């Protein structure tokens, strides 16, 4: 950011105090050490971003490291907003997000950034109602109203109508959302804005929104943590976080009127409709997808890579990694609750990967 170039007085003076002048003058963006260009020396590549795919990414990076011990991909899940920010600043080599970068964000980056979908996931409404045996049903409208603060108690007539015969308590609904910039938020509010015009105008769609109410948790981890610890609460997290932590989650009514629970199958069906008409830059929303059995709050999640990275060695390693992830890596998805990519999307991506300049 040109802004920060101005205060060189403090910078140069303070910089002379740095004992180990390994950095010296401003270096071009390298995620690895200067001399690690050979295959035998360990190459460390840093990335940051979405918490949504963190379980499968951390599995992938660990498995890939086992296959290629000299390549260490260090991924920190700090939220999609953080991923976009850090990759734009080039403080990390690659980013990850579930909310695709908009045109304005793409323009702000110093170079062209490409989106690569990696897996499909689902955002589920989790809740903590002690003693409740059945799964709750939600519609997009009720979820929007809960998050707008219009539905305040669990036994509100709207909820009772959707869940006849279920004993809903008279407790207040404690709304939990994300406190950090989040692609999971993006997916959730993208869906809510499609089904509730009021939500769209009052809150809008972005990785970080102004929530009318509730408590903020940091990352999918934070929201899961808050919901498990707060009786009467509701939150939204990626499917695997609900499964791994055994938190109850409800089914949501899709565009076809069915109440669908998130699963590898229902997410795959949601993607099927869009897959045929995938845009060239892979930025697409598949929430509220049409079709039977489709889960309405599904989404792709993307890796963000520069088309012309400064560090060619890291660029090549990442291209190899993504190729592996799109093929062999997909077999790890189902166990972790993510749906693998449709075949035609994989083919399109492999073609797009060749755009990255690795030499």
């Amino acid at each position, binding site marked *: *950011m040109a802004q*920060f170039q101005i*205060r060189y007085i*403090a*910078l140069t003076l*303070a*910089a002379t*105090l*740095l*004992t*180990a002048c*390994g*950095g010296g003058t*401003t*270096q*071009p*963006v*390298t*995620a*690895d*050490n200067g001399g690690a260009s050979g295959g035998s020396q360990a190459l*460390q590549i*840093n990335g*940051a971003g979405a918490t949504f795919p*963190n*379980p499968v990414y*951390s*599995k992938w*990076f*660990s498995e890939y*490291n086992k296959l290629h011990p000299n390549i*260490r991909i*260090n*991924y*920190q899940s700090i939220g999609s907003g953080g991923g976009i920010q850090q990759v734009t*600043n*080039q*403080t*990390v080599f690659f980013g990850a997000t579930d909310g695709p970068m908009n045109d304005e964000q793409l323009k702000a980056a110093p170079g062209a950034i490409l989106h690569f979908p990696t897996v499909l996931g689902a955002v589920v409404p989790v809740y903590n109602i002690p003693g409740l045996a059945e799964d709750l049903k939600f519609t997009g409208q009720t979820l929007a109203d809960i998050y707008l603060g219009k539905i305040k108690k669990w036994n509100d007539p709207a909820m009772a109508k959707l869940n006849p015969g279920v004993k809903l308590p008279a407790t207040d609904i404690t709304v939990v959302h994300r406190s950090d910039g989040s692609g999971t938020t993006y997916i959730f509010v993208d869906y809510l804005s499609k089904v509730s015009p009021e939500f769209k105008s009052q809150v809008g769609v972005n990785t970080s929104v102004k929530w009318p109410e509730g408590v903020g*948790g*940091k*990352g999918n*981890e*934070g929201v*899961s*943590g808050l919901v*498990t610890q707060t009786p009467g609460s509701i939150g939204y997290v990626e499917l*695997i*976080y609900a499964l*791994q*932590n055994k*938190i109850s989650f409800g089914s949501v009514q899709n565009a076809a009127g069915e109440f669908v629970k998130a699963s590898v199958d229902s997410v795959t069906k949601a993607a099927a409709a869009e897959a045929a008409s995938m845009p060239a830059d892979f930025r697409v929303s598949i929430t509220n997808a049409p079709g039977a059995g489709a889960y309405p709050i599904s989404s792709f999640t993307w890796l963000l890579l520069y088309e012309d990275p400064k560090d060619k060695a890291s660029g090549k390693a990442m291209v190899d990694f993504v190729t592996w992830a799109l093929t062999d890596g997909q077999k790890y998805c189902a166990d*972790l609750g993510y749906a693998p990519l449709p075949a035609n999307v994989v083919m399109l991506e492999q073609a797009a990967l060749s755009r990255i300049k690795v030499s």
Partner: protein
Amino acid sequence: MNVTRTPPARKILSALFVVACGLAVVVALVPLAFVLFFVISQGVQSLNLDFFLHNPRPVGEVGGGMANAIVGTLILTGLAATLAVPIGILSGVYLSEYRGSRFASTVRFAADTLNGVPSIVIGVFAYAVVVLPLGHFSTLAGGFALGIMMIPIIARTTEELLLLVPNALREGALALGATRARAVFGVIVPAALPGIITGVVLALARIAGETAPLLFTSFNNAFFSTSLTQPISSITVQVFTYAISPYEDWHRQAWAGALVLVTIVLICSMAARMAAARVARIRGQ
């Protein structure tokens, strides 16, 4: 009227006051006991060889440890000390040797100011000054942030200790024809050295437990790393990451990490204070 007997009302008030003060001590010690009890009882369960020797496992898998974080904290504090010890001690020397000068007052004021700056603000400064120009998160940035926090502590303790050195020593050295430099570094500083080291250890103990300045400087690293230009894991950031997660196994490891942290910090603080007490006793304070 008997003027030598205190009316019972005042006596009772006084007694109540004494009890209240005693109660205050108990009230303060209750959370201390509480915290230590939980850290020890929860942490001990998860301390095993695995914890010290292994790196974190992928999300959701059980096992793994904080080996990289422990090493990271050691490297970061070492780096911080490399930055802070020269600047801190020499500033302290200046403050004690040239006490009355205007510049010394400015330096002292700056040291006290720096001491009070919130650690998150120091993190922001280190991000702007080290991370952005270098282009990525790094151990250097984290060490820089922690070092800045150490400097004022070391400077002020050094200053005060040097002032305690009897003037006779300085006068003797100067009388023998030593230059100022020789007198200070050859005679006075060695005399105060135990105390100075105490100050350094106390400062180390304080910053070893810092989290906020590391959040966007040294960032975090899933792998074992000793490189200065790469992000590095640290016990504090790792405990934070684990604490706000939903995974039971990570919570266990967070308590274990907290136990390790508290042990390091307490041992350093205790050792430093015992040494300081001994020095004070010798000086006859």
